[in-house]
């Protein structure tokens, strides 16, 4: 058996620059502590999805989405519809915690005078580097940015993500093995008309039992973060969907409190 090294494409791309520029010169790229380049995989509802190599921290998320050099703005609406609005951005691969459009963060940053200052900034103004995204509660992760506009059903989106993680869990340790499929099943139910208003809390409670060092590897965290952040930031959508399902079921079903004889009476009264 020969030893095999499996390398990420991004790593090899970095190697190319380091070889070309030299290590010290390469380290000067980007911002302090967040040096070098990153390859951003921009996907979702932008005009120009694709791979863009950027200097770490020199570009904001807003620029990545809207700058003609990168995403070029949200995609065109269907004819006769109002222009699209941004709804959410997943900044670092599907496991990273989601940003809601219009979210504001208070970040401590080094000001121009070298002092640490607290600065409130919009989600779109976050520079795309490691530290800022972590400070904003997410991560740059695999630097795969997923942009979602207002056409997206956020519950469906989460169901899709959860399905992916349920499928990918290796099953070695208990919380991730059972939790990932449980969340996926709950979301499948919620997206197939069998939801409950309480499912939002239900999902978070399941997700809370997986991460935090309870699993062998980081996959446990990866599958629970999206659920935690989606439900936290779009809770009203989850509840609304569940409630709608509940109401629809209540109309279609016989009220368990009414006895058959009463039903008969009400039927004849009409």
């Amino acid at each position, binding site marked *: 058996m020969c030893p095999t090294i499996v390398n990420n494409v991004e790593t090899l791309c970095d190697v190319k620059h380091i070889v070309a520029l030299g290590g010290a010169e390469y380290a000067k790229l980007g911002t302090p502590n967040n040096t070098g380049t990153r390859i951003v995989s921009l996907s979702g509802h932008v005009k120009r999805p694709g791979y863009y190599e950027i200097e770490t921290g020199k570009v904001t998320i807003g620029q990545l989405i809207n700058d003609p050099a990168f995403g070029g703005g949200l995609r065109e609406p269907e004819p006769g519809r109002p222009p699209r609005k941004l709804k959410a951005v997943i900044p670092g691969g599907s496991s990273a915690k989601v940003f809601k459009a219009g979210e504001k963060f208070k970040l401590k940053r080094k000001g121009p005078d070298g002092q640490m200052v607290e600065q409130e900034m919009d989600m779109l103004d976050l520079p795309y580097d490691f530290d800022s995204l972590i400070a904003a509660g997410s991560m740059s992760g695999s630097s795969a940015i997923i942009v979602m506009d207002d056409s997206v059903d956020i519950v469906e989106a989460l169901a899709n993500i959860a*399905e992916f993680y349920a499928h990918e869990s290796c099953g070695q340790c208990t919380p991730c093995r059972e939790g990932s*499929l449980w969340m*996926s099943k709950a979301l499948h139910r919620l997206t197939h008309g069998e939801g409950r208003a309480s499912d939002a809390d239900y999902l978070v409670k399941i997700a809370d039992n997986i991460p935090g060092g309870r699993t062998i590897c980081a996959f446990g965290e990866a599958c629970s973060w999206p659920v935690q952040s989606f439900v936290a930031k779009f809770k009203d959508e989850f509840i609304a969907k569940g409630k709608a399902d509940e109401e629809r079921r209540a109309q279609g079903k016989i009220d368990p409190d009414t006895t058959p004889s009463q039903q008969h009476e009400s039927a004849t009264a009409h």
Partner: protein
Amino acid sequence: MIVNRKPLTLAERLYLPAIVGGFRVTIRHALRSLFGGKTVTMEYPEQKWAVPPDYRGAPYLVKDQDGHTKCVSCQLCEFVCPPKAIKIIPPGPAGELADRPNAEKMPHEFEINFLRCIYCGLCQEVCPEEAIFLLKDYSLTGLSREEMVYGKEKLLALGGVHGGIQKWKHKLEEAKEQENFPVKV
């Protein structure tokens, strides 16, 4: 605390008023039952007692809606039975399979000794399969001791069909549905 009794009055000491009172009460009852027909006696074989809904009669085995044996021979009733009236012989590795899908197991023999049974209802309470019920029967008779030991067939015949959740059937249906779930094996 010491309660001092009231001293008896003369009338009480003479007993006579009490005796007269006794005569009155008894004659009233005697006349009422003799001519008024107001008796508390239930003349049993002709008149039958309306058994209250929570009555604990004889424990019988019941079948589910599809006529399958509900008991899975878990022997919890045998364990809990205070007078040790229940005896279950499990099927063993080579025994017959359960007569319903997915449940794997049913008793090879299930005996309740009604000479020992105290109708406490613990077997019904403990049964995880809702397979044993205390039904309304209260007049069990037999001519020999052997006759009073009811076997599985007899208990099932007496218990009849009793609905409720069909746990194992439900599981089987669930297993079939699994094929349609997006995350597959």
